[in-house]
């Protein structure tokens, strides 16, 4: 719009002409409102976006596990608090870095110890979880932290934390030899009620034990005192010992999925509660866990010159049949005196267990014994030297051949002493009766095998034939007697009756004179019988013992004969043909 203004020259010299600034008609059209409006709206939206934008965080996972950029949400208490914007490999390709944009409201939650994990459908023996993710896809779970320090980079958990913040209860640490069939989420039982869960496990620092983190829920955690024992209730426990077969289980779930149980043994009960994060030992089974700790123990070494097969570590040591210790070592020893190898069994006895079984009246004596080692030694020496207390291997179970060590009285055993001079005292032993029994049985079997059954059978046949003939003869003889002898017999009887009557008369006379002499004779006989009684029937009378043995032998023989008779009954032909077992 430039008007061509006349610069009409400079006329009167010296007086400058006022310049005319060309009037530019600048007409801004109303239409410019449109782009301004658009810009305002766009900037408004941008500002709003930036204002509502929460922090961007990075979570490192081992694997993406179904996470997708733009589709996966981060949820806390099932509320979306963020969305995954990027899923990519870490620079060293070993992990997955998940970038997520959090909601502005969740900015304050992104603290150091906040936890993230991938929620996916999980079907385990102890339950089913995350079924919703089958339809909606996996999402990232979030658990609030306690720290105040903000953080933008997190490491995701591999498994969902079992215990979420704010759940009442306490956490404890268990040390176990191995994990057994336990896992994260394994239940913990208290009196068969589920009282908590295993929340984590890890190898101990030195790699020689497993550390389990457990959480005991609120009402139950007050039953955990410093004396509480935890034991593994996983699966079922079959133990075959000298006591037989034992099967135990805590619950069906524990049977399938593994589990723990705890209880406080009465002797360890205290009023105080265990501190949170207190460490406990995880015992392999309830019996071990609830066993009273044996404060007093005495070790002995036993040298056996017989097979130790069936004797295992942990086998009981009994005193007069009551358990009072256990075998701790089974090995071999070179006897320097005879240069032979013998079995070496080390046992530990717990005198307190036996003392605890003493009657109430003897409590004081028991306490004294429990306290004084001197007294216990003296008692043991007396028992060994005077009463013949010896250790012997006995069979606890003929079926499994398990052996145990029995301390019993053998008054006839050769004199022996406890050798206290050694580091571990040596306790005298007597050989097991078991090998004797075996030898006897085998000799009986051998004898039975030697029996000439076939010849006997033949002889019996002959005898029977002869018997038959004899019986026939006897029959004819009897007939003859019947006819020939009967009249003579009658006369004899008559004579006999007369003789008796005469004798009766005679005896009446004799009675008076003889009575006195007879009484004397009876008295003498009485004395004589008493003596006989002492020798024959008294306690420990050798004759009686022999008699018993003889009777047993007879009984055994009778059994053999019965067997033979049974056999013959079933196979009468054996008498003629012999035993039929070889016949086809």
């Amino acid at each position, binding site marked *: *719009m430039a008007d061509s203004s006349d610069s009409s020259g400079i006329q009167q010299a010296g007086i400058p002409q006022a310049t005319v600034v060309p009037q530019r008609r*600048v*007409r*801004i*059209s109303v*239409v*410019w409102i*449109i*782009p301004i*409006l*658009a*810009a305002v709206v*766009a900037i408004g*939206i*941008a500002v709003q976006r930036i204002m509502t934008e929460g922090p961007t965080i990075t979570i490192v996972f081992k694997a993406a596990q179904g996470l997708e950029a*733009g*589709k996966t*949400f981060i949820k806390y208490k099932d509320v979306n608090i963020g969305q995954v914007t990027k899923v990519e490999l870490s620079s060293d390709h070993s992990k997955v870095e998940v970038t997520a944009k959090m909601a502005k409201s969740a900015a304050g939650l992104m603290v150091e110890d906040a936890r993230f994990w991938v929620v996916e459908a999980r079907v385990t023996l102890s339950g089913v979880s995350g079924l*919703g993710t089958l*339809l*909606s*896809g996996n999402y990232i779970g979030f658990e609030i932290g306690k720290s105040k320090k903000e953080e933008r980079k997190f490491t995701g958990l591999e498994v969902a934390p079992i215990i979420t913040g704010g759940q009442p209860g306490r956490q404890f640490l268990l040390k176990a030899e191995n994990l057994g069939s336990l896992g994260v989420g394994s239940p913990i039982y208290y009196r068969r009620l589920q009282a908590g869960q295993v929340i984590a496990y890890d190898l101990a620092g030195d790699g020689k034990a497993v550390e389990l983190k457990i959480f005991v829920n609120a009402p139950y955690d007050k039953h955990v005192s410093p004396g509480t024992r935890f034991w593994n209730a996983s699966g079922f426990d079959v133990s075959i010992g000298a006591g037989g077969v034992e099967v135990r289980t805590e619950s069906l779930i524990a049977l399938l999925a593994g589990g723990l149980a705890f209880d406080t043994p009465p002797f360890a009960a205290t009023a105080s509660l265990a501190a949170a994060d207190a460490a406990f030992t995880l015992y392999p089974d309830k019996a071990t866990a609830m066993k009273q700790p044996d404060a007093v123990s005495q070790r002995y070494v036993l040298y056996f010159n017989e097979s130790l097969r069936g004797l295992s570590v942990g086998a009981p040591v009994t005193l007069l049949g009551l358990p009072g210790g256990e075998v701790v070592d089974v090995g071999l020893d070179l006897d320097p005196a005879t240069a032979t190898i013998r079995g070496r069994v080390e046992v530990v006895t717990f005198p307190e267990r036996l003392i605890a079984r003493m009657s109430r009246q003897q409590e004081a004596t028991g306490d004294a014994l429990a306290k004084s080692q001197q007294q216990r030694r003296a008692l043991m020496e007396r028992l060994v030297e005077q009463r013949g207390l010896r250790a012997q291997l006995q069979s606890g179970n003929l079926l499994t051949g398990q052996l145990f060590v029995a301390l019993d009285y053998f008054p006839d055993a050769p004199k022996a002493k406890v050798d206290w001079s050694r580091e571990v005292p040596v306790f005298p032993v007597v050989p097991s009766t078991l090998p004797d029994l075996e030898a006897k049985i085998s000799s009986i079997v051998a004898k039975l095998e030697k029996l000439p059954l076939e010849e006997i059978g033949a002889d019996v046949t002959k005898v029977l034939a002869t018997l038959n003939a004899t019986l026939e003869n006897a029959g004819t003889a009897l007939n003859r007697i019947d006819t020939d002898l009967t009249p003579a017999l009658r006369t004899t009887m008559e004579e006999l009756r007369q003789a008796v009557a005469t004798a009766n008369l005679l005896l009446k006379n004799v009675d008076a004179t003889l009575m006195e002499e007879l009484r004397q004779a009876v008295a003498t006989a009485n004395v004589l019988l008493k003596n006989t009684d002492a020798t024959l029937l008294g306690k420990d009378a050798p004759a009686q013992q022999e008699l018993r043995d003889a009777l047993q032998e007879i009984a055994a023989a009778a059994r053999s004969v019965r067997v033979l008779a049974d056999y013959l009954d079933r196979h009468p032909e054996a008498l003629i043909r012999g035993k039929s077992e070889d016949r086809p």
Partner: protein
Amino acid sequence: MTTTALTAAQAGLVSCETCSLLSRPAGGAESGYCPRCGGELAQRHHHSIQYTWALVIAAAICYIPANVLPILTTNTLGSTESDTIMGGVVLLYRTGSWPLALIVLVASVMVPLGKLVALSYLLISVQRGSIKSNQDRTRLYRVVEFIGRWSMLDVFVATFTVALIQLQPLMSMEPAPGVLFFAAVVVLTMIAAESFDPRLIWDTPNGRQGHHG
């Protein structure tokens, strides 16, 4: 026709935009009305360049949120997904239907952008009084005008989808703010193309006076 050909404006005449009747303009500021069809006559549109520029700039501003913001929000069984235009193109391409991806890319991304660029080019060339390749520029203008009516396709698709796919609670779709900006881009570019007077292309720098601001 050469660029040096006489234009109606140079000859002091005005042509009717409706029936193309060439007539002498009425005196004064107004050009008057067409004696044959009664349409309003104008030697050149008033402030054509300024109007067009304003609309082109507004469209360009709207073009950014139209592409950055999601245009559709899909709820599928509890999982919500928002898609931008480019996101949709990428998704289509990834799922193997690249012809569809190409169509969406051309129709929704390249065409609006092309229109903006084309209009800007026309405006700049007119303002600089360029007389080169006038025919090509006229052809370009025709293309821009022609394409305009097809550009709302995206908005229609989005609207229909939202209206049809409401299978609560299995699946539902909602329009997202992006679609609003996209519609604004289309409408603004259409109006911009309309407000641009193609006769300006033929004006030589000397022959154009006072018709643009």
